[in-house]
């Protein structure tokens, strides 16, 4: 496994410079490199053969997390290691801590980035379902200006997103959460911290009595890409943390409506079992975080 010839390497300092570099190449000929923990694998196996690498490591405006009254803004170049210990997500967006702390291994977390993962959208990645469950907004900048879209619109099938080849993902935005909101993410894989066979993310808001007023649930590890579960989301409405039967019924409906695949890691029925068992754990955790 070794990269094919790479004609040019550039390291822009700003988004404007990165866009200019991108504009010098035909669509698909330039590869923007974030942390490179997935993209470099693709370059080494020659799944990707970029003529130019645009290394985003020095673009300061793409880095870091800032939280304020109007929500949280995450720079796409923020690394997993920083996300894992980020203290501003509180209960509402804590699924990000859960996911980032268990991606790959220490070395990968020191280098891999949230924006890289979302733009790559690997079938068994952790961040895409988390972005769906949290209602993340993606801001993209291209030669014709900026546009913003929801994670639902951004994330497509495996390795597909709505980002155009001449666009850069410049910001990940989470709105100020409703009071009493909590989120969680959990995955199961064959070895510790491995790519998920199934991963489930949930975000809940509750009213004063602890009953769920809104729920977003997303599932990763599916053959056709991460997706939200409408059945789980509607089934959790009005359910409280202590209502084990209500939670189980919502997750049963989620596993019934979700098409799962059999492969060398797990068969389809086992994936449905994982949706139910991991789902119960993340819903319980999200309720607990919403109550704090």
């Amino acid at each position, binding site marked *: 496994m070794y990269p094919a010839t790479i004609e*040019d*390497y550039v390291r822009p300092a700003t988004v404007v410079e990165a866009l200019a570099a991108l504009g010098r190449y035909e669509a698909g000929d330039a590869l923007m490199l974030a942390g490179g923990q997935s993209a470099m694998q693709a370059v080494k196996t020659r799944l990707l053969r970029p003529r130019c690498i645009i290394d985003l*490591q020095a673009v300061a405006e793409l880095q870091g997390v800032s939280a304020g009254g109007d929500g949280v803004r995450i720079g796409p170049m923020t690394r997993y290691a920083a996300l894992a210990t980020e203290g501003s997500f509180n209960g509402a967006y804590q699924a990000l801590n859960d996911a980032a702390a268990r991606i790959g291994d220490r*070395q990968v977390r020191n280098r891999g980035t949230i924006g890289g993962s979302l733009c790559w959208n690997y079938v068994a990645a952790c961040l895409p379902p988390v972005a769906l469950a949290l209602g993340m907004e993606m801001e993209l900048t291209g030669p014709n200006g900026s546009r913003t879209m929801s994670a639902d619109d951004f994330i497509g099938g495996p390795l597909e997103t709505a980002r155009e080849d001449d666009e850069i993902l410049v910001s990940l935005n989470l709105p100020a959460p409703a009071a009493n909101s909590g989120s969680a993410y959990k995955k199961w894989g064959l070895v*510790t911290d491995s790519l998920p066979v199934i991963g489930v993310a949930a975000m809940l808001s509750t009213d004063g009595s602890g009953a769920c007023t809104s729920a977003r649930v997303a599932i990763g590890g599916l053959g056709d890409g991460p997706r939200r579960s409408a059945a789980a989301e509607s089934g959790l409405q009005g359910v409280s943390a202590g209502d084990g039967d209500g939670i189980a019924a919502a997750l049963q409906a989620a596993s019934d409506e979700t098409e799962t695949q059999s492969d060398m890691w797990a068969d389809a029925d086992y994936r449905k079992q994982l949706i139910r068992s991991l789902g119960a754990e993340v819903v319980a955790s999200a309720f607990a975080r919403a109550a704090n």
Partner: protein
Amino acid sequence: MKTTVNITINGESYEETIPNRMLLVDFIREVAVQTGTHVGCTYEGVCGACTIQLDGEAVKSCLMLAVQADGHEIKTVEGLATNGELTPLQTAFNEHHALQCGYCTPGILMNMDEFLKKNPNPTEDEIRHGLVGNLCRCTGYAHIVDAVKDAAGK
């Protein structure tokens, strides 16, 4: 096709003109001739034997191009000991027989050296979780965990 880079490895600066596609691990091994950093899984990014520290953080040098390290400081296993004096972690590996064939050892040392700086008093679970990215095919993990535990706080 080529770029001139300046990469500091164990305090020594290497200014070289290299192919853009050269992996960092090959720059370390073949250009700087610091061969303590190993290639275990033929560049697949799964074994951790090529782990080095980039600006103090443990990363896999087969998952980076050398040009990405331009202007950065790298530490490899050769840079751990000072004037031949081993670090407490290296001494603990020796005392606990934490290596058999030794092939994975440089990567584990570079990972655990940084791990212990961030978490000086880890639990056994935290140590094992920290070692996920390093494969030892002699299956010597028990002794490796003992050595890391012993080195913690020293």
